[in-house]
């Protein structure tokens, strides 16, 4: 009896051999593919000591690259946040022709390779491009300058905020806004005291994902930035340059900063997920659930 019990798996697919080998395979893959390379970055960055690490970071080109990345994020993220909220609002609260098309279009940056976006911007704003001559005669620099980098980053990260908000706002429906308006609230008042509090965690989640992508974007930015050291290099581009200069320690040091940014993002993301962001339905949204059993006093 006891023997039969041990031989029989508690549930289907839980035979000990199968179970253990699956766990070992997954852990090995995670260690090889994800953990080891990250560990190498940290290790290599400090391989010549903390002093050398600090010196590398303090290098004026590296500092400038960090600054460029921060500046790009500072411009692109707020713009895309506003864009994302507006898009999600329009798609979920209004009916208009082209609504479904808009839903598909804002997904394009997800499916298109970032380098395609870069080349497209080259075509639009480049010297031989659509507006190239007009821009040059007006002395406006878009490509190989900050505006180009910001535009390319914005293209790549355009869907992040909207994608987080749309399912949530769709689940919430229009009832809350209608209720607020029927009680006499203006549009702005309704947005700030009813809509925003109910989407804030999902919004922050989207902003964080958007920010981490802006800071890490390589493909699209590398095409439009021109890679001018100390002028138009962002952190990911600078890491590549350092590496091509055979400055492995420098590359790893710069990369460790980017990796540290990613870790901070990850922590923030996990913290937000605990508050229910990033899920389609909020567990605490009880207003729409019909109560089945209850008593009235």
């Amino acid at each position, binding site marked *: 009896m006891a023997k039969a019990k041990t031989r029989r798996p508690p549930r289907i697919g839980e035979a000990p051999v199968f179970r253990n080998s699956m766990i070992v395979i997954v852990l090995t893959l995670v260690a090889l593919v994800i953990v080891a390379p990250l560990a190498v970055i940290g290790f290599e960055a400090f391989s010549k000591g903390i002093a050398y690490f600090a010196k590398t970071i303090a290098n004026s080109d590296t500092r400038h690259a960090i600054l460029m990345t921060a500046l790009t994020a500072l411009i692109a993220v707020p713009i895309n946040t506003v864009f994302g909220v507006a898009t999600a609002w329009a798609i979920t609260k209004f009916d208009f022709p082209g609504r479904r098309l808009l839903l598909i279009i804002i997904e394009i940056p997800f499916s298109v390779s970032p380098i395609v976006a870069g080349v497209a911007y080259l075509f639009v704003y480049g010297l031989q491009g659509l507006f190239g001559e007009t821009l040059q005669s007006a002395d406006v620099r878009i490509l190989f300058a900050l505006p180009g980098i910001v535009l390319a980053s914005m293209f790549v990260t355009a869907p992040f905020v909207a994608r987080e908000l749309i399912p949530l706002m769709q689940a919430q429906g229009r*009832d*809350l806004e*209608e*209720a*607020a*308006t*029927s*009680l*006499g*609230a*203006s549009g702005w*008042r309704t947005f700030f*005291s*009813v809509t925003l*509090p*109910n989407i804030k965690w999902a919004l922050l989640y989207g902003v964080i994902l958007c920010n981490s992508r802006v800071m890490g974007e390589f493909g699209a930015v590398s095409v439009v930035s021109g890679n001018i050291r100390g002028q138009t290099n962002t952190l990911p581009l600078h890491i590549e340059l350092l590496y091509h200069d055979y400055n492995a320690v420098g590359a790893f040091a710069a990369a460790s900063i980017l990796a540290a940014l990613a870790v901070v993002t990850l922590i923030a993301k996990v913290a937000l997920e605990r508050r229910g962001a990033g899920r389609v339905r909020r567990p*605490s*949204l*009880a*207003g*729409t659930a*019909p*109560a*089945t*059993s*209850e*008593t*009235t*006093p």
Partner: protein
Amino acid sequence: MKIRLDTVVKTFDTFRAVHGVSLEIESGELVALLGPSGSGKTTILRMVAGLEFPDGGAIYFGDENATDIEVRHRGVGFVFQHYALFPHMTVGENIAFGMKVSKTKRSATEISGRVTHLLRLVQLEGLQDRFPAQISGGQRQRVALARALAVDPKVLLLDEPFGALDANVRRDLRRWLRKIHDELGITTLFVTHDQAEALDLADRVVILDKGKIVQSGTPEEVCRAPASAFVMNFLGDANRLKVTVSDEKAQIQGVVFDADGIADGPAELFFRPVDVTWREDGHGIQATIARVIDRPDSRRVLALTVDGQSIEFDAAPEFPFRAETRGFVDIRRPRVYPA
């Protein structure tokens, strides 16, 4: 506040939701809009609220044409089917919201005094610091009502107010809403697809079908004199038999019924399952019992006429007959409608 709808029309994309509805609701009246789903009742309610705008016709509040007044300036209290309480605000904050955003400024003490008063009115004293997720469905419904009443609406509008609640809570809340209405005397319009709810609660019932009013009257009027076969059917269980009318007399198997004002030709005879007596002598329509179903307070008998039309009727629990028994169906209060 008296409300008047004048040939209101509303079309969604290609679907005509409301066809030229005219309706008057007297000041202080409690009126039910009753109809099956898709009959346009909710659309009418939302147009009165200003949440939808009619494509044609006009809506008057008193003597004022309110057709184009936005919902936030219209001064209506709207209670949503799923309550639409703000989940991030407490019960007290929900009720106070309308007063806080209103143009007439109120002091914080005035607002909190009114919140307390409203909570007492809806019998929810002490729940003001709870969140909507922490109270029951029936309590949420009452918070939603208190929130709507807080802005001193001219008109109270309720969309399927008890739709999401279970039967017992529903009945209690119904009686309670009637009491509140009688206390406040506010003109109230509510939407329901539940006949019992409409008849139980309303001064007047407006029955809608496919975007048109098919009958309007007191519960007694619509129950005793349904204007059409649809109303007869919709208000409760009804049997339907095919009959032939000539000279204002409906005839089936030699049994004759009055059919005043019905044109000659085929027609339909309607009657309620309680308005039937089963007889063994030759009085009534000949039928054979097909099945007997037992219920706590009665027996429901399914019978077939000689020409195969089915009849259902209620009998006392002591009803002794079984399937295959032949007899006669004696009908009281028959109603004949054109086919």
